[in-house]
């Protein structure tokens, strides 16, 4: 594997080269507006200015693969004609943090594994190239990726890995997969890469300040504690909102609904959240998870036990978003620590 150098001054040219035949998503905006947006090719050099690579986006990039709302198919009410959405073309996500990159492997488990391949997802996934960006500094005091099997410099799942140099003027670039090498060719042609010299080194990656002691047998421990009264305490401040699920890079629950408008019936799939009161309600009105205690327990058991049992991965990458943003102080790291004491 060769390492190249991408000067920050060459970033506009690098993005322009990608935009020629890819849809390119990169973080733009600040504070709550900090999100992955689709850059438009018309204003490539200005777009490079709009890109904001500082910090973790408010909402994770999962919606690029798993949109908040998507039409699966439509049926014309008059003619019965079936329409399917346009397939997406080659797509690049630029500047994804290591935790968010690792979360894509979780989405893959849900949408591609166990004998079921989701048509809409696989089409987007195969067309996706991931350009990751190592964390030079911690993004927030809630980051705990290195307790969850990843780390601020983890390249797991990335096609290309960018690491900022010590002087902050450039990125060291590693092309890790065939998809990554295709971009390398593109960038070579556009002459945006240079050879690093010995002074172009990356400082050692940061270490998360939030350390969570996650025992090997956490799934078994938590499942054995299904009836533990502590769940009441853990959930008492919870509001039952959708914040934690919607900002989480790994949450993948959806609902399917039909909408009729404009002479067309559309079958749509949209994000759903296990903390909502209508999520587990059944025909006839029975709800096996009637209060926030059962809902919150399910959320954490799914993340920390059930998913692990089924796919061999924890459904949390330690990005810390839910801890930082929960309006009620609910804290997944706290649940993991408590599980460890059981």
């Amino acid at each position, binding site marked *: 594997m060769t390492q190249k150098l991408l000067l920050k001054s060459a970033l506009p040219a690098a993005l322009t080269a990608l935009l020629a035949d890819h849809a390119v998503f990169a973080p733009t905006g600040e504070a709550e*507006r900090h999100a992955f947006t689709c850059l438009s090719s018309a204003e490539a050099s200005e777009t490079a200015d709009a890109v904001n690579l500082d910090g973790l986006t408010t909402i994770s990039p999962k919606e690029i693969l798993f949109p908040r709302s998507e039409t699966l198919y439509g049926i014309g009410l008059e003619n019965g004609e079936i329409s399917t959405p346009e397939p997406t073309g080659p797509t690049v996500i630029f500047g994804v943090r290591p935790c968010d990159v690792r979360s894509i492997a979780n989405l893959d488990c849900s949408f591609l594994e166990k004998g079921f391949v989701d048509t809409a997802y696989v089409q987007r996934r195969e067309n996706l190239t991931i350009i990751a960006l190592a964390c030079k500094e911690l993004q927030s*005091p809630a980051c705990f990726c290195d307790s969850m099997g990843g780390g601020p410099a983890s390249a797991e799942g990335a096609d290309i890995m960018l690491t900022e140099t010590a002087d902050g003027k450039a990125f060291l670039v590693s092309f890790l997969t065939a998809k990554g090498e295709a971009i390398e060719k593109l960038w070579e042609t556009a002459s945006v890469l240079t050879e690093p010299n010995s002074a172009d080194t990356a400082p050692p990656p940061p270490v998360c300040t939030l350390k969570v002691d996650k025992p090997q047998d956490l799934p078994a421990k938590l499942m054995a504690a299904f009836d533990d009264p502590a769940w009441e305490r853990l959930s008492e401040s919870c509001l039952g909102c959708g914040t934690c699920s919607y900002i989480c890079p790994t949450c993948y629950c959806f609902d399917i609904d039909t909408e009729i408008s404009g002479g067309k019936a559309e079958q749509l799939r949209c994000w759903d959240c296990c903390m909502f009161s209508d999520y587990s309600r059944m025909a006839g009105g029975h709800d096996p998870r009637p209060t926030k205690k059962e809902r919150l327990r399910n959320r954490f058991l799914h993340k920390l036990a059930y998913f692990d049992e089924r796919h061999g991965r924890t459904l949390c990458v330690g990005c810390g978003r839910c801890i930082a943003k929960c309006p009620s102080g609910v804290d997944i790291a706290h649940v993991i620590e408590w599980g460890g004491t059981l």
Partner: protein
Amino acid sequence: MTNEQKQTLMRERAAALMKDGAVSYVIGWRETRFPGKTAIFFVRDEKDADMLVWDEYTIPLTAKYLTENRWPDKKIGIFARGCDSKAINRLISDNQVERENLYIIGLPCEGKKDDRCLSCTQRDPLIYDELLWEPENATGTSETDLQRARFFRAEEVESLPTDARFAHWEDVYARCIRCYACRNVCPVCTCRECYVDMHRTGFQGKHHDAAENRVFGVTRAFHVGDRCIECGECERVCPMGLPILGQTQKIIKTIEGLAGTYEAGMDPEADSFLGKFDLDDKDTFM
């Protein structure tokens, strides 16, 4: 009195109430992992009382948590600042909780490190069984004393030209993620079943887009508008930082323009402005 002394009083009082068996639990605040962020906490036995906190960050409203237990076996103990007490008054007049089920420990508030406290009109509790310390400021904060206009958020939008106002709200609805945190935290948003959760009625579409977000945003604002106690919790919890307090402020401001001084939650007996109905109403529309 310092915050620390006040905190000690709260811990002692909660422990004593639990020891006497006077209440089933006491709703207050605890620390979180992060300095500057507290969370709601239920004191369930004497020992828990030592986890209570009182500092400039004890911001979340306690009152909404009363609606989780509408028929308690024993009284519920609750710490209440001015804003919490307005919320409790509304919960009582909306028939959501019964006064005799509550044991209210009033906490005159010095104002917290939160934007909305700059335009708080009521720092001292209005309804309580006991006051834990003496108010330092006169009850209520007169309009002229406010550090910021009472309807500051609504006025931000009013100051924009019409087109920009439209663009402002379209931007809000485009960015809303419909997590419903604003609905869930609001002390006057108390329907047992929200229209949003009524499965397959079609009232609220499931699509995550600006059009469906607008349906929710406008419905929420109008449903709580005349009962809004101006606590600002809806803005505090919004993960997208949307300035939605402006919606209900605008409704209250409009009510004031039509009917004179109006503030919800000042009196447990008071009807809500839009909830009043008079059989002798001259208006034939009804």
